[in-house]
């Protein structure tokens, strides 16, 4: 990680509610560009809500509310930017691979681009190839590009979904437990991919696997009961956390 002083994301006083229930309480943190940030914490601590506030997905559910400031490259995404534009800049990969089953492998990759009518057929093919190569899937599927995305293995489907997110050239990729449904070999491929992705993008990844957080992230944020308890360099968090709560969580005493 370099000593860049510029913040890709600057979040301050972020609160989020599901109806009357407050899920996030005054979360403030800054994320530097081209880094991997791991978000850890026990179930129900607000991890997913937190990342869904970063691409304005939280507000999609009726009754949900958000307050506070989320600056993306210095611009408040809740004031000055259209929510669709935010989601184009901030891609998302979910826990369970979700390729569009009625689309081919290559169409899955360029589905977002097709939706906004951004490119010709030839360009779309080139984009599909480029992003399948970026996620290390090209050699495995180059002869099956017309097959359904659902025909791939779980690990391949997840990389296909990452390729789909990458095709939109996002500035940030949010990952919500992207390997929890995968076998160890597929998990290793995704972890390697996350490490290479940060050459171009900023990655924020939720994981329940603290060893995985330690392996792949530069920074780690620990959440508990909707609050950000500790945020810092991963090495520091996993070697000498400041908060006893963080210590107890990462050493498996609770959670």
């Amino acid at each position, binding site marked *: 990680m370099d000593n860049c002083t510029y913040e890709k994301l600057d979040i301050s006083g972020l609160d989020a509610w599901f109806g009357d229930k407050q899920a996030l309480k005054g979360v403030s943190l800054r994320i530097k560009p081209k880094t991997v940030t791991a978000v850890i914490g026990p179930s129900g601590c607000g991890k997913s809500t937190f990342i869904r506030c970063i691409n304005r997905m939280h507000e999609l559910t009726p009754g949900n509310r958000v307050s506070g400031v989320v600056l993306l490259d210095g611009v408040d995404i809740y004031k000055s930017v259209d929510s669709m534009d935010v989601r184009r800049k901030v891609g998302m990969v979910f826990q369970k691979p979700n390729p569009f089953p009625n689309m081919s492998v290559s169409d899955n990759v360029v589905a977002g681009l097709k939706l906004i009518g951004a490119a010709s057929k030839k360009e779309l093919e080139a984009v599909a190839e480029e992003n399948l190569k970026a996620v290390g899937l090209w050699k495995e599927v180059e002869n099956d590009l017309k097959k359904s995305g659902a025909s791939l293995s779980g690990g391949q489907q997840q990389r296909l979904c990452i390729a789909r997110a990458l095709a939109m050239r996002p500035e940030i990729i949010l990952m919500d437990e992207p390997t929890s449904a995968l076998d160890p070999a597929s998990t290793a491929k995704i972890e390697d991919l996350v490490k290479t992705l940060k050459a171009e993008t900023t990655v924020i990844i939720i994981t329940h696997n*603290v*060893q995985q957080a*330690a392996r792949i992230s530069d920074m780690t944020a620990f959440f508990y009961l909707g609050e950000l308890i500790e945020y810092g360099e991963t090495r520091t968090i*996993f*070697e*000498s*956390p400041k908060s006893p709560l*963080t*210590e107890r969580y*990462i*050493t*498996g*005493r609770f959670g």
Partner: protein
Amino acid sequence: MANEMEYITKINAEIHEMLQIVDALGERVQNALDSKRRGMKDAAYEASVDIQHREEEVTALCVGSLIKYQPFAGDLRAITVALKVSYDLSRICRYLYNITEVLEEFEVGACEVNDVSALLKDARSMVSMSLTAYFDKNRSLASEIIERDHSIDERYRMVLSAQRRAPFGSGDCILLNGLTARIIERMADHACYISSETAYLVTGRRTSYR
């Protein structure tokens, strides 16, 4: 992680046995030095080899624990510190053996050894206290030991100064005192390393002593 706690307990039990061997050897070497007696070298060598094997055992336990549990935070520090403490104990034992080598090597019957004897007594006490601080996770005791190192260093230099002024023809005594004082000064350093590791174990912050 209960299993991991058991591992750390097992590692510390091994380190405790290492300390007992070092303590017992230290007392015997102290008596040998005080009485300028020879014949300790083989027993000291055996103890040194025993300690080395135990250090390897601690290393195996630590590596096994790292592989099996991939510990973090306090658990991780406990294992990395145990590795270093066992190494320091193995070095201290080796230094005690080195003193017996010196006793064996020179004609020391007529030498004045009060200063190095007192130095050894203090260094042994530092070693013992450093392990107490380690087992009790007592940061203030660890700091006290590190403070005492200045006094050991100062007295080591005083021994060397005194030997410079020694009369012509007392070569064996000069070598005995000079070499022994140097060995003891290194023993005290290792007691400080253990104390420094203890401070890291407790606080998570490293203050470079080594």
